[in-house]
């Protein structure tokens, strides 16, 4: 502390122990080499997508070590589940991951339905697929805009939000909200889609396909983007498996793992679509996989809208807010936009679930960062961080 000087406020470690920081950075600085700079990325930096803080040890422009610091957005969702009824916890699911609310809706509703043995009507299953895939597209669009923004291009995020607004309009028809959607109920969905809902989707699909072509010309083929992404941020399958990274990260490492295919849930086995897999192991692979997923999701939505049968959108005698889960436990996984979402519900038959464990894909995906960013320059580390598609509320829960 006495060695602190205003000429050197960022703590160049000429002597160990002279760095002025909080617990995390001091603890991190203990292992730093003399002469290296400790840098805090975040928690309020725009490129960290929320309130993620990454402590980085820098040697010049190179990242020597890094450590993500979490917990700035912890809202104790899992504890809240122990104090609410099973139904009362449903709205929380829209708030765990604000970009992929429907994915979390499905994971929790699916776990409870599995435990209680509730079967959904056919129409509800189709509505679920339509909502989940539209939500996946909107999540990927936000990621796409924000990622390219991280790399220094401002304009694409405006186009991405333009398209996302259309999806928000569509989902607002049935869910009533634009961001924290609470659509799923035990045994069905909250509201049936009307004619306007389906006609809006039918208009949206060809429109989005045109826009994807524009995205390709504007961004994907851009030489600056290519040079920023290709061959940078290698994450092979071994690394992903060791940290439990799932979703586009794992698929960009050449592993065709998608919960919709490997453990089919809902009615995903009825649709014709592909799981995009890239072998390149780099940032561009992850970028490409997500953009391909948008067009695959469009295919699924198109088929679902064409095939949807008439009927009820929720079972008769659907669980009421005071409904109690039967004793037992169940685990249910769905493929969210960021990877595998798993919800583990344990119930002792009481008023509220005994324990609910939420497995957020972002948490495992983030843990890959420290190893992947080792030895890269700072600008590339930001590109790697962006390619992970982090949503901090989901990681902190």
């Amino acid at each position: 502390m006495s060695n602190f000087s205003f000429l050197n406020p960022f703590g160049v470690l000429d002597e160990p122990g002279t760095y002025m920081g909080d617990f995390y950075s001091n603890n991190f600085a203990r292992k730093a080499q003399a002469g290296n700079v400790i840098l805090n990325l975040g928690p309020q930096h725009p490129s960290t997508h929320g309130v993620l803080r990454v402590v980085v040890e820098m040697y010049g422009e190179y990242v020597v070590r890094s450590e993500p610091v979490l917990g700035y957005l912890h809202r104790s969702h899992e504890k809240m589940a122990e104090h609410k009824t099973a139904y009362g916890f449903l709205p929380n699911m829209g708030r765990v991951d604000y970009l992929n609310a429907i994915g979390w809706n499905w994971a929790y509703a699916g776990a409870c339905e599995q435990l209680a043995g509730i079967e959904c009507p056919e129409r509800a299953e189709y509505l679920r697929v339509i909502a989940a895939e539209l939500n996946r597209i909107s999540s990927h669009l936000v990621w796409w805009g924000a990622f390219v923004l991280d790399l220094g291009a401002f304009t694409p995020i405006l186009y991405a939000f333009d398209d996302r607004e259309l999806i928000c309009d569509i989902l607002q028809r049935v869910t009533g909200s634009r961001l924290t959607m609470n659509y799923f109920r035990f045994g069905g969905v909250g509201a049936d889609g009307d004619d306007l809902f389906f006609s809006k989707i039918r208009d949206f699909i060809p429109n989005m396909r045109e826009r994807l072509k524009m995205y390709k010309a504007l961004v994907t083929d851009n030489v600056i983007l290519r040079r920023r992404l290709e061959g940078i941020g290698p994450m092979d399958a071994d690394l992903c498996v060791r940290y439990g990274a799932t979703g586009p990260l794992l698929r960009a490492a050449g592993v065709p793992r998608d919960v919709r295919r490997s453990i089919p849930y809902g009615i995903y086995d009825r649709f014709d679509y592909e799981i995009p897999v890239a072998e390149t192991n780099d940032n561009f692979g992850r970028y490409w996989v997500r953009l391909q997923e948008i067009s695959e999701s469009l295919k699924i939505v198109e088929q679902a809208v064409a095939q949807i049968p008439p009927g009820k959108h929720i079972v008769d005698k659907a669980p009421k807010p005071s409904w109690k889960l039967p004793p037992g436990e169940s685990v249910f996984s769905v493929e969210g936009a960021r990877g595998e979402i798993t919800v583990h519900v344990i119930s002792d038959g009481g008023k509220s679930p005994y324990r609910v464990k939420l497995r957020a894909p972002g948490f495992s995906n983030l843990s890959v960062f420290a190893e992947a960013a080792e030895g890269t320059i700072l600008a590339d580390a930001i590109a790697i961080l962006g390619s992970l598609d982090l949503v901090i509320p989901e990681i902190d829960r």
Partner: protein
Amino acid sequence: MKMLSAIWDNLKGLYSLLVGMCITGRYFFQPLKTVHFPRDVVEPENLASYRGPLELARGKTDESKTRCISCQMCAKGCPGNCITVVKSKEGKNPVTWLYDFTLCCLCGACVEVCPTAAIQFSHRLYLVSTSREALVLDLLKDLEERVAAGPLPAAGAGTPDAKKPEARMPDAGGPQKAAGGSAAPDPEG
């Protein structure tokens, strides 16, 4: 040969930049897609399915009377405990219907459990306040005010719910006054 391919790569890169510039240039001359909020608001059709803060539905026979029978289903089912319904001593109708919008997560549990369809979502997008007390809404008073303001306007183009919530035009410019005057101190006065 290596030099030739380097030149070719750079030319291709330059071309990709030109393509991008063409696209952004084309969009530059297209009409505006955003809405400049205080001067302009989104169309009411867009709000037809928007779930804003709760309101009480108009009565079937007497419009200013609520359909609520004080059964407390909504208050019990609410995950955020934001509803307070007090039954009157004479009949079934409530004397107090307080709704704390600061605690509400708009999940719709109350609307779904209500046996008489007395609660519905409003489309008030522009409800803001600088004090917490002003967001505790007295919905009975709100219902009276709405009925006094005029009869139900023709319902907008199709809503997903069978019960058609009435379309309420937003107050453009400035925060909307909180409907419930439950001891809300005016922040300015």
